[in-house]
C-alpha cells in the first residue's frame, strides 16, 4: 500500500511533468497537448536562459569548492581530535541542519545587510572604507550556499578520514615525513572518496537550492530553481517550467551517478 501511495503521489506527477515538458504552451491557459521540443530548445539556446543555467552551474560549483576549502580542514580537526572535542565539534556541524533553512537564511540576511555586523566589523577594522554590498548579489547567495552545504561536506569527509589507520600516519612520521607531507601523500589520497561524494552532494544541493537564492538574491540573482518558480507559479507557463525542472533534475542525476562511479573506481587499496 505505501509503495502504491508513492507511485500515485510521486511517480505519476513526475511522469506527467515529463509529458507536459513536451507540450506546447499557450498564453491564455497552461498548455495544449501538442508535442514539441521547443521548451527544451528555448531553454538551451536562448542566451538569457543560457546565462541563468550558467549562473546556476557556477554558483553550485563554487559553493562545492568553497565548502570543500573550509570543510576539509574542519573535518581534519574533528577526525584527529580527542573524543570530547570531537563530540562538541560534531554537534556544531550537525545542529544547523536541524534549524530551518529559512531561519539560517534570515541569519545571513541580518549578518550581510548593508549596516549589518559584518560590514560594521570590516569598516571598523579598517579593511573596507565603505560597506560592501552582499545582498542581492551572487556573493551573498554564494556565502549562504556554502554555509548550507558545509554540514553535508564535513559528514561526507569524516567517514573516510576516520577510517584512516593511525598506524599509517605514525609510520609516515617514523620514516621522516613532515606534517605537510603526511597530509599530501597519505591523508588526502585516502580521503578522495569523501572529497568526491562531498563535492557532488554540495553541488547538487546548491544548484537545486531555492530558499537561499530566493532571499539572499533579492530577485536579482536568477537561478534555474527560481526560474522554475517564476515560470510555473507566477507566469503559469507550465511546459517551460517543466522543461527547466527536468534540465535541473538531469544535471543532478548525472553529477550524483558520476560521483558514485568515481568513488568506486577511486576506491583506496588499503
Amino acid at each position, binding site marked *: 500500500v505505501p509503495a502504491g*501511495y*508513492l507511485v500515485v*503521489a510521486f511517480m505519476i506527477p513526475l511522469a506527467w511533468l515529463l509529458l507536459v515538458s513536451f507540450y506546447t504552451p499557450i498564453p491564455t491557459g497552461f498548455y495544449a497537448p501538442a508535442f514539441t521540443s521547443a521548451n527544451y530548445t528555448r531553454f538551451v539556446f536562448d542566451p538569457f536562459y543560457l546565462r541563468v543555467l550558467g549562473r546556476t552551474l557556477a554558483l553550485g560549483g563554487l559553493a562545492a569548492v568553497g565548502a570543500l576549502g573550509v570543510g576539509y580542514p574542519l573535518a581534519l580537526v574533528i577526525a584527529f581530535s580527542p573524543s570530547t572535542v570531537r563530540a562538541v565539534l560534531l554537534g*556544531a556541524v550537525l545542529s544547523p541542519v536541524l534549524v*530551518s533553512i529559512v*531561519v539560517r537564511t*534570515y*541569519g545571513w540576511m541580518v549578518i550581510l545587510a548593508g549596516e549589518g555586523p559584518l560590514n560594521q566589523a570590516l569598516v571598523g577594522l579598517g579593511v573596507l572604507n565603505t560597506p560592501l554590498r552582499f545582498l542581492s548579489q551572487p556573493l551573498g547567495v554564494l556565502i549562504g550556499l556554502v554555509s548550507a552545504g558545509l554540514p553535508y561536506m564535513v559528514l561526507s569527509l569524516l567517514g573516510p578520514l576516520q577510517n584512516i589507520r593511525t598506524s599509517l600516519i605514525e609510520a609516515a612520521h617514523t620514516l621522516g615525513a613532515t606534517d*605537510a607531507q603526511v597530509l599530501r601523500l597519505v591523508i588526502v589520497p585516502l580521503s578522495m572518496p569523501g572529497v568526491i561524494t562531498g563535492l557532488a552532494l554540495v553541488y547538487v544541493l546548491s544548484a537545486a537550492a531555492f530558499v537561499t537564492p530566493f532571499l539572499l538574491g533579492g530577485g536579482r540573482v536568477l537561478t534555474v530553481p527560481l526560474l522554475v518558480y517564476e515560470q510555473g507559479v507566477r507566469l503559469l507557463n507550465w511546459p517551460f517550467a517543466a522543461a527547466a525542472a527536468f534540465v*535541473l533534475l538531469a544535471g543532478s542525476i548525472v553529477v550524483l551517478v558520476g560521483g558514485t562511479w568515481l568513488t568506486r573506481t577511486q576506491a583506496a587499496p588499503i
Partner: protein
Amino acid sequence: VDRVVRLIVLTAAGLALALLLLPVVVVVPIAFSASSTFQFPPHHYTVRWFVAGLTNATFMAALRASLVLAFGVAICSVTLGTAAALALAKGTRRRPRWLEAFFLLPLLIPTVVSGIAFIQFFAVLGLLGSWASIFLAHLAIAIPFSMRVVLATILGIGRSYEEAASTLGASRLWTLWSVTLPMIRRALVAGAVFPFIISFDEAVIALFLGGARTLTFPVRLVTYLVDQFDPMIAAFATMLMVFTLVATVVLERTLGLERLSRVA
C-alpha cells in the same frame, strides 16, 4: 613549514565553524534588540518583538495550520512507513533491492522539481491551492524517512523473536502487536518526529502549492522576508530554534545522535 600548515588548517576550520554557526547565533540577540535596525550587539533589550509576533494574526493562523498539518503528516507517515518497512524486512530474499531504492527517490529529487510536478498533478485533480494537496505532497516526501528509521531498527533486531512467537502459536497479527511493535517503539517515535520536522520546515513545495488562503508558517516567513526583515522574524526564529532544540532532545533520547546523523 609544519607550523604554517597547522595554522592554515586551524584558521580554515575556524572559518568553517563561523559559516556554520553565525547565522544561527546572530538571530537571538537581534530578537531582543530594542532598535529596528541591526545594531550588533544591540544597545537596549526588549521583548516587544516577541509580543508583536505572538499577536500577529496572520502569522499565528499560519503557525496553527502548520502544526496541524505537520501532526497529520507525522501520524500518517509513520503508519505507512512502518507498513512499508515491515513488508521490505520480510521480503529481503524475494523482493530485490530496487524496491528499497525506489523508496529513496523522493529524497533525491530537488524540491523545486517535485513542487512543479505536484502543481500540475493536483491541478488535474482539482486540488490546487487546497490544504489536501500540501498534505499529500508532504506525506509523499516524508514516508521515506519514516521507512528508513523503522527498517534500520527491524533489520537490527532480526527475525528470531517473531519466529519464536509464531512457533509458540501466536497469529501473525498478534505477533506484530505484542512482539514486533513494542520492540521498535523507539523507532516509531523517531519515525513520527522526522516527518513532523520535515513538514513543519518545508517551504518550497508548500509555496508552490499554497494559494492565498493556504499559507504554512515557513511560507509566510519567506514571503514576508521578500519585502522586509524586521526583528519580529528574529523573534520567530528564536522560538523555532527553541522548538527544534526540544525536538532534537526527544530524538536524541530515543535514537541517539550518531544514528540521527546516519539517517538524516
